[in-house]
Structure formats: C-alpha cells, structure tokens
C-alpha cells in the first residue's frame, strides 16, 4: 500500500514553502505526536493492568491484606485441576463452536451470494448478532432450562421421551453454550464471507462455467481458494472472541455441571470476584495474557498480513 512520506517526496516538498519552515526534527516527530494520545491511552489499559497483575500475582490477597508468596500462586495454579479444566473447556467449546459456525456460514454464503434476494437474506441472517449477548444468553437459558421449550419440541418430534436436563450432563451443558454461540455469531462470518464472494473476479467463475464446470466444483476449486485470506481473517477474529467467552457461561451455566462449562474468563472471574482470591486470579490472568501474546504474535499477525488486499 502506498504511504506518504512528507518532506521526502522531493517534488512535493519543494513546492511548499510552509513545509520547509518547520524544523526537520519536528517533521520526523510529527507522526509520533499524532500517535501519542492513542498510545498513552492503550498503554494505560494494557501495560498498567499487565504490570499490576504480575505484581499482584506474587501475593496472597485476602481482602485488604497482601502477603508475599513469590511464585506460590503460579505453582499452585499449575497443579490446579480446575485451571487446566478451564483451559481445556475453552479449547473444546471454542473449537467445536468455531468449526460449526464456519461450516454453516460458508454453506449459506455459497447458496446466498448470487441469490436475487440476497439483501433480504442478509438482514434476516444478521439479526441474531444484533441482540445484546446477555439477552441472547437469557433467550437460550429460557429455551433450554427454565422454559423447557427445546425439550418440548424434541419430544413432539419424537427425538427424546421426556424432559432433558441440559445441565445434568457434561456434553449437553457444553452443547447449550455452543448452540447459543453459533446462533448469535454465525452471522459475523456469513456477512464477511458473502462480501468476499461478491467482490471476487466474476470472469474466472464465468470462464469455468462456460468450460462446463459444475457450481459446487467451481465453488470448491476456484472461489474458496481465492477467498482463503478473507476466511483466515474472519475465522481468526471470531476465534479470538470465542476464547474470551464469558457472558453465556455467566448467565446460562455458571460453569456447571462440575466445572465442565467453566471457561478461562469465567475461571478468572470466579477466583477474583466470587472467591476473592485476587492474587490467584491475577496469576491466572498473567498466564492467559502470555497465551494471548503468543497467539497474537503468530496466528493473528500472519492472518492480517495475508488478509491485506
């Protein structure tokens, strides 16, 4: 992408007396000055909390008393089965949910992107995403647990014989979280996939079609590979958000049964704000932060570089 280097693009600078009046040092500092306010703000909410969390993680914090423990919290956490369970749950729930969303979004995008009624479909498919996540969590809590609507429908269809206790089984409880996430966030991927498909060079598809290729073959062999960078960016962004899943857990399952639906975010929240183990919660935060930085530096950086069109 072209970028402008004022002062250095000779012909332009020569013609502007005003530019020469400014000192070269100011010219050089100018972009940094423009960035300073935003950077200070972001450092305040990332660097400061990061350092604070590292510091606090070295203490046992009970209400107002802080007792030095060094790496005590970390060694405890690495042996804490609940911590590893939360990490595993986040990975399992996230992976299943993300795969389902990607598959569904690709399928409906494939059928919709050249449909005459695409504008209508798009608005309908978009709607779930526009409800507040906390409200969506309540929709599903009512549908699954409190209102027993899903059970009732399944009974009518003859799939099950009596009321399903969705929180009574590890996989059923996880499934309720996955259903809620898929319902709300498949639109995110759909919107991006459709935009990607529509912005493609149609002549290639047309040429393949004239050569007698079938539509599924064209989609699979031409459209999909061309869309790869877009898919990577969209799935990466969605993947990041899934790993931070909190609201649905908080409203729908609270981690039950037996911690099978406790995600990393909920683990930190529970340790900090339910059990008031702030030092312990901070240690977990630091570990999650390290994980985030690693993922950001590898997956995300690459996704966004390949995604730049």
């Amino acid at each position, binding site marked *: 992408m072209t*970028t*402008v280097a004022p002062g250095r693009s000779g012909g332009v600078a020569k013609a502007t007396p*005003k530019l020469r009046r400014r000192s070269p040092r100011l010219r050089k500092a100018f*972009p940094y000055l*423009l960035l300073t*306010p*935003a*950077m200070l703000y*972001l450092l305040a909410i*990332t660097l400061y*909390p*990061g350092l*604070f969390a590292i510091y606090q993680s070295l203490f046992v914090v009970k209400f107002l008393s802080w007792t030095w423990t060094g790496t005590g919290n970390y060694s405890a956490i690495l042996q804490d089965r609940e911590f590893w369970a939360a990490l595993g749950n986040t990975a399992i729930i996230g992976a299943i949910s993300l795969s389902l969303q990607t598959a*569904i979004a690709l399928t*409906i995008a494939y*059928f919709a992107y*050249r*449909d005459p009624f695409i504008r209508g*479909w798009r*608005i309908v*498919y978009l*709607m779930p995403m*526009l409800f*507040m*996540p906390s*409200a969506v969590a*309540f*929709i*599903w809590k*009512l549908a699954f647990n409190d*209102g*027993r609507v899903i059970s*009732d429908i399944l009974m009518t269809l003859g799939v099950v014989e009596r009321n399903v206790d969705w929180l009574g089984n590890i996989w059923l409880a996880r499934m309720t979280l996955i259903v809620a996430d898929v*319902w709300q966030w498949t639109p995110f991927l759909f*919107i*991006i996939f*459709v935009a*990607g498909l*529509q912005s493609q060079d*149609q002549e290639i598809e047309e040429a393949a079609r004239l050569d007698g290729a079938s*539509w*599924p073959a064209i989609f699979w062999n031409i459209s999909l590979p061309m869309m790869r960078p*877009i898919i990577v960016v969209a799935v990466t*962004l969605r993947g990041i958000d899934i790993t931070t899943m*909190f609201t649905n857990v*908080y409203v729908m399952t609270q981690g039950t049964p037996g911690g099978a639906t406790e995600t990393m*975010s909920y683990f*930190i*929240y529970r340790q*900090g*704000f339910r059990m008031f183990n702030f030092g312990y919660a*901070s240690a977990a*935060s630091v570990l*999650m*932060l390290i994980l*985030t930085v690693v993922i950001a530096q590898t997956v*995300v950086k690459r996704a*966004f570089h390949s*995604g730049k*069109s």
Partner: protein
Amino acid sequence: MAKPIRRRGESMILRYLVLGTWALVCLLPILWFLSIGFRPRTEVITPQPIYWPTFSLDAWRLLMSDWPIALYLRNSVIAVAGSVVIDLVLAIPAAYALSRYDFKGREDIGFYILSTRMMAPAIVAVPIFFLFKTLGLLDSVWALMLIYAAINLSLVTWIIRSYMLDIPKELEDAARTDGAGDLRILWEIIIPACLPGIITAAVIAAIFAINEFLFTLLIASTSRAYTMSVALANFTGGSDGIIYNAIALVSFIAFVPILILVILIQKHLSRGLTMGAVKG
C-alpha cells in the same frame, strides 16, 4: 455487486431449502422471545410451554413503574456516546499517522494497537477493578465510558486507517502544493474523504459498547451506573427469580436502534467487522 444469475446444475429447491431453514433458525427464537415480552409473567414458565400466550403489557408496566428505565437508558447513551467520541478523537490522528506517514516502528505500533483487541476482558478485569476503586470511579458512568473507549480504540483506529489508505495520494499532493499544512490536510481533505469509514467505525464501536458485559458488571455494582445491558442481567430479580418477560422487552428496545444503525452502514459492515482487512 454480483449479478444474480441462474446456476445450472444446482437445484433451486436445495438452495431455498437451505436458505429458508437458516432463516427460520434465526427468526423463530427471536419471534418466540418477542412473544415472551408481551405475555403475562404467569405464562412464561409453565409445566407445558405456551406457544400462543395471551397478549399483555405487564412487562411494559413493570419497566415503567418499578424500574428507572429512563435512568438506565440515559446511562447507556452517555457512556456509549462518550466512549465513541473519545475513540474518534484519539483514533483519527493515530490512523492518519499509520496510513499516511512512513516512520520507524510503524508496523510494530500498528500491530500493538491491533493486538489490544485480542486481550480478554477477564485478563485486565482485576487490575482495572482495583484501579477504578483507587480512583474512586467505581459505580460511575464515567468509568464505563473510559472502559468502552479503551475496548474499541484498536478497532476504530484500524477501520479508519483502512479507509485512509484508500484515499489517493494526488488529492493530498494537490493541497500540499497549495501550501496547506499537515493538520489542515487532515481536517479538510482526509476526514471528509473517509467519512464513511469514520461513521462505520463509530457504529460498530457503539454496538460493541452496548454489548459489553463483564466490565459493566464489575464496575456498575449499584443501579446508579447500570446500563441497559447490566440492568438486564440484574433483572434476575432476587427473590422474584428471573423476570423473563421484562428482559425480553428490554432486549427488543435495545435491538431496534441497533438494527437501524446497521442497516444504514450495511455496505461497510464486512469491512468494519474485519477491522478493514476485508473490503466488501
């Protein structure tokens, strides 16, 4: 825009079966939830689910009388609108620097800004909680405003940056030849030229701010600073249990303006959601 064409070798029945099914999957829960919002509380949780309830404005009356909904709405609007203003003021100069200048560390700074979007709210929740406690900002709309602005700053910067990259250099050069300074160019040429991007960024930031849940939950611990989102979560009513019909109604009250905003920026939505990486 792709021209709608008929695809040979693909059954129209299959296409509309798939599209129709997913449309139902999207709409049925929404319709059912809407029906919850307009039924009496006695018909919400019943041994046998009721699909055709009696129409009732119970929830509406409850919101109006027992609930300072005007206060919550006002809190939401102040916190969300304020955060968007903060974001734009900080992000526009930053995006300008990232898109129109060549300087050392540009890529790294840009990526650092992007990466703050990836941080789980839970990671910074404990420190931020202590910070606001020290500053005496707990339970205030201002704290929410600052947090929402922080959450969305990376997104807003990257969206605007993407639109600024699209502005042809010639436009800027012409102004420069006329003797305009950098800031004047930003104000008079760049900002008007990327206005769609700025509006898109503002709308998406507003939606994410309205949706934010964890911080709002931690910071707004009394109803003084409740926004719609947390008030909704706290409408679990204590001894009354969860008041679903009121929750349903509130969620629709919030849904309508968001839907309108999104329809207005529809063309830019995919680009905004990918922080500018995908140009739809």
